[in-house]
Structures are given as C-alpha cells and as structure tokens.
C-alpha cells in the first residue's frame, strides 16, 4: 500500500527539511495567504472531547490533547505526533455545511448556489490513517454522481503525512491494508530524523509544493546521507512491526464471513456493550453518512445543510410509518461492522476503516474494534476456536434488561 504512488517504479526524490524550516514553510504558506491545517495542542478541558471531562475536574491538571486546526501562526504547529481527537474528515466533510441557500419573497423563491471550488490549502503532519481515509471515501463520493463539495476540497488540498510512531494498542492500520507510513490519500510523507524530517513527495501536487518552497528543502543524495535515510527507514519499519503486533487479520476472510453470516449470533454478541451513542461515527475518519436539513435564518430565507449523522441512531432508518428496519441496537451495530468490513469492500474494493483506533478510544462502553475484528477473524479462519475473552457476552436481549 505504501508503494502505491503515481511515480511508478521510480523511488521518490527525498529531501531534508529541518524542524525550523518546516515551521518557516508553514509561515511562508500563511504569509502567502494559504490555509495551513496541522495538529495543534489544545487544552482538553476546552475541547469537545468528552473523554477529558473527568481529568478536568482534578485540581492542578491541565490535560492537553491534539486537534487538527487551520493554524494562524506557525508556532502553533505541534509535531509531537499525538493523534488528534477528531480526524481530518472535518476539513473535507464538515460537521455541517451549506448545500444551497434560499430566499422567499411572497410566492417567489430563489435558490442561491454555494461555491464548489475552494482556495488551495496545505495539510501538514496529517496522520497516515487520516489521509488514507480520504482516499477510501473518495470512492462513495464518486461512484456515479460526483460530490463536487467533497471533490473541491480534495482538489484544493495538498497533504503531507507525518510517519506515525504508532499511538497505542488500539491502532491496527496494517490489519486493514494501510500502514503507519502510508501515503495513500496524501501527496507526500515526512519522516522524523535527526534534526528534522525526510520529506518525499508522491504526487504532482506534493512535488509542486516542494518545488515552490525549494529553499526550505535540501535534496538528499545517497550515499552521502545514507545514515539519515537508514534511520528513517528503520523507524518506519519498526512502527509497522509495532502496529502489526496489535492485530493481524485476513481482511478478505472477514469480509466474506460477514457477508455470509448476517444472522450469526457472534455479530449480536459483539455488540453487547454498545449503547448507540454514535461517538464512534463522529471520530471515525471514514464514517461519512449524513443528514440533510433546512435551517431557517429569519423570515423567508435559510440554508439547506448536510450534517454528520450516524447509523447508530434509532432514527437513522425510521420510516414515516413508524416501521424501523433496524429497531434494536445490536442490529445497528451489526450494520456498522457490516458496512465497514464487508459491504463497502465488496462494493468499492476498499475497507471502510483505516485502523486509526479512535472508535475504541472514544467508546465509553468499551467496544474494542481490535477485539471485535480479532473475534470475527477467528470465526472466519479458525471456526471452533474460542474467541477472545470478553467479546462473546450474553444475548442482546439481556443488555436491554440490564440497562
């Protein structure tokens, strides 16, 4: 997957950029009026993350977390490589966005278009699992009708990933075809080395960015800088090994097992702790389901918007008649698993998950995708073997009784 670039067999030219020059690059871009999106540290107590709430109540503790933000100053850039709480999705499919605006005067209605082209912007130090998710969602946004709002933002963005050291035991990007140094969905990769970063552009947009700011980069020519290159390669390989140790599955076996075991009690039992809050969908870089609503703005005018939605909400599939095809939480959770690991791969050839682990980290009920995929993989490839402890719980009906 990491080799999937548009440069063919030729290895991309690597450049060195120092820490100071990377900040200077951000400053150059901001100075030229280009938006720069990058991870920044935020006071967790001021962020929407519910996870921070308990920590914020403790005296003397000021928890810090990362968020992607359109920065105003290069000093804000935080390359500490923590995972932002929300994925990069918010900059491509905003939490809510205008689809059109209407004005009504008497019987006359006019509809105003919203722009579908966007000013160029640069994303620095994106997580590889976040850029890969954009490439995965590209499929559904273009399988017939083309979503110009999504595509416009994609085209306007040049994305440089930062090779990820692997965050924790919830990461599993290598199990779903990605990697901590993936450039899928991105235009280049930064790998931390002594004193700065090795930068490699993998698309024309990426090469154009380096060319336009050539003064900030110095070409790396082996063998003079072989040690630097080796350091980068070693770190990337080590990260791949670390994440692979978290979870190894055969994604195709998982896909096919789910497609043929819709009514299998394992799927219901894996949903046992889920209470349908939908936080997983909000933090997920690939969840793209949305609602369309009208928002009135005074008399006779308003905005039609789309906003994030979740298949975990009972109202998601509720018919006007009152009939609900997914009227129980374990059925809605099954849809989430089915859509991500079976339906989407069968329809679009991509797993609708990049293994970022956010859904597991954010889940207050303890639903753990590493555990769940592991259990399905065992059912698919080694039927008869007991699944991991804690995954096969009581029957779904019992959850209702207990809650």
């Amino acid at each position, binding site marked *: 997957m990491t080799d999937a670039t548009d440069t063919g067999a030729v290895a991309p030219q690597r450049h060195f950029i120092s820490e100071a020059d990377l900040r200077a690059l951000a400053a150059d871009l901001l100075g030229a009026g280009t938006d720069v999106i990058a991870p920044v540290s935020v006071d967790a107590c001021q962020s929407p993350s519910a996870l921070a709430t308990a920590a914020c109540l403790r005296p003397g503790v000021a928890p810090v977390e990362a968020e992607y933000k359109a920065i105003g100053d290069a000093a804000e850039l935080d390359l500490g490589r923590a995972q932002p709480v929300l994925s990069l999705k918010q900059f491509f499919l905003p939490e809510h966005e205008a689809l*059109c605006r209407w004005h009504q005067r008497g019987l006359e209605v006019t509809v105003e278009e919203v722009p579908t082209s966007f000013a160029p912007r640069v994303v620095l130090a994106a997580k590889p699992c976040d850029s890969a998710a954009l490439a995965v969602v590209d499929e559904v*946004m273009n399988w017939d009708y083309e979503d110009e709002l999504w595509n416009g933002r994609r085209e306007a963005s040049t994305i440089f990933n930062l090779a990820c050291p692997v965050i924790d035991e919830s990461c599993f990007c290598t199990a779903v075809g990605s990697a901590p140094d993936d450039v899928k969905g991105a235009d280049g990769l930064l790998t931390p080395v002594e004193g700065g970063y090795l930068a490699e552009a993998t698309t024309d947009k990426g090469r154009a960015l380096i060319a336009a700011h050539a003064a900030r980069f110095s070409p790396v020519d082996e063998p003079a800088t072989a040690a630097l290159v080796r350091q980068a390669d070693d770190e990337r390989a080590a990260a791949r090994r670390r994440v692979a140790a978290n979870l190894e599955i055969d994604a195709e076996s998982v896909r096919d097992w789910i497609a043929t075991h819709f009514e299998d009690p394992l799927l219901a039992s894996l949903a046992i702790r889920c209470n349908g809050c939908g936080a997983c969908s909000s933090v997920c870089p690939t969840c793209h389901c949305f609602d369309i609503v009208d928002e009135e703005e005074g008399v006779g005018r308003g905005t039609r918007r789309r906003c994030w939605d979740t298949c975990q909400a009972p109202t998601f599939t509720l018919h*006007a008649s009152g009939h609900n095809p997914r009227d129980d939480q374990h059925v809605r959770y099954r849809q989430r698993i089915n859509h991500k690991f079976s339906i989407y791969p069968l329809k679009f050839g991509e797993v609708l998950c990049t293994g970022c682990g956010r859904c597991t980290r954010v889940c207050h009920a303890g639903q753990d995708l590493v555990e769940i995929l592991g259990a399905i993989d065992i059912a698919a490839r080694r039927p008869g073997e007991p699944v991991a402890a804690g995954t096969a719980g009581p029957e779904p009906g019992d959850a209702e009784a207990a809650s």
Partner: protein
Amino acid sequence: MNIYQPQLALVTDVVDETPDTRTLRLEFQDEAVRESFAFKAGQFGEYSVFGAGESTFCIASPPTREGYIECSFKAVGKVTTALREVNVGDTVGFRGPYGNSFPVDDWKGKDVVFVAGGIGLAPVRCVIWNVLDRRDEFGDVTIVYGARSVADLVYKRELEDWGSRADVKMVTTVDPGGETKDWTGEVGYVTPVVEATAPQAQNAVAVLCGPPIVVKLTLPVLEKLGFADDTIFTTLENRMKCGLGKCGRCNIGPVYVCKDGPVFTAAQMKALPAEF
C-alpha cells in the same frame, strides 16, 4: 450547481385523495428543465418545502404524460406536513429523477398484474398509466388494490376509470369493517383477494407495492399462483436523504436502495438481509 441543489417547481394542482393523503402536480419553473426533464416508471425524487426540508417519494405520474410530475404523500412528518400546506401557485423544490425503474419495455406481450395496498398505489399508479398509455403492447392487465377503508382509497377517480375499462380487470377491496353501505367492491385483506382473483402466471409479470406486511404476505401467494421470483417486481421505500448513493441511510447489505433500487425483483429481495 452541486448535486444537492434542487430545481424549483410550481404547484399547479392539488388533489385531496383521502383525509390525510394529497397529490401535488408540479411543473418546473425553468423552461429548459421543463423541456429536457425525462424519467422512467419507478424512479423517485427528493421533494422539498424550503424551511421544512426534503422528503423522498416516487414520481406518481407516468413518464408518458409530459410537462409535469406528480407526487402523493401522507402528512405524517415535518416535511409532509409542510407539503400539505402548499397551494396552487406555491414553489417547492425537486431533485431527481433518481434510482432504477420498472423494466416496462421487457414486459411487451406479457400480462401485467398490479397489486397495491394503501398509499403503495402511488408508485404502482405510475406504472399502471405507463402500461395503459401503451395498452396495445401488453396482454391482460389486472389491478388488485386494497386499503383499510373506503375513505383510505387513493386515486378514487382513477380507480373508477380503470374499473370501467373493458381492457382492465380491476378488483378493489377494503379491510373488513372499512366498507360503507353502498360499497360495491370486495371486503377483505389484499392477500386473500389476490388469491381469489387468481391471475394466471404464465407469460405474466406482477408488480407489488404496499406496507411491509402486505408485501410479506402477498409474495407467497403470487408464488403459489406460479409467478417466478424474477417476474415479481416491487419498489422498496427505505428512508433516504441524498438519493445519490452517498448518505448511507438506505443501505441494506450489498445494495444502496436509492441507486441499486428502488425497484427490485422478489429474487433480488430474497437475497437481501431482512432489513426493509
């Protein structure tokens, strides 16, 4: 103009079908759209009242009647309640046509049996008129339509129209207790009435639409009469938002109802997880 932006359409006629079901006739405001707009029987659209939002209905008028489209709806939610308030001369929004269609052209020379329950007649009406407007191309036409009560029958004038035609076999029924003193149709649920009507299945296709219970109970009856799974067509009415295969709402197993459907054969439906 992005794919979510609606066309504006003028309401040119309003018909109250039942105390809670209304039909609107719409004509596109933009002349070029009015000229170029084309659709196929079974396709649907997103209808909107600005300020209330969008709602999904089939196009209830046939493609053989050009210059306008019609939709029929029951006022049950926010958008349909707002649609219920619009009058002739008001402007609404429309996006579409979306989805696949009934393969009417493949039915040439065959008998066509229509079975509908309640407001399920709306998408079927489009196909009925499409077939009747091209009557010579088809064999026998049978229509079995049922509703809870006489008051709940939609398209009453058209039911009379179809019933009076020599080239249509029309059976109308109401649920027991739903009949009036002067009711001359059948009394009973749709499913047994279909069984009693017993349309012959050889060289025939069936179009079935209604509440989930009517579809569920009528399918085995059609099969018993000899209809093969790939000769029974229905239209699924999953909740939708975008209609364009993006928003994820109508997904069931391998299909997005809005793009792979809404028209499915019984064979295709049986291959789907039971989530509709």
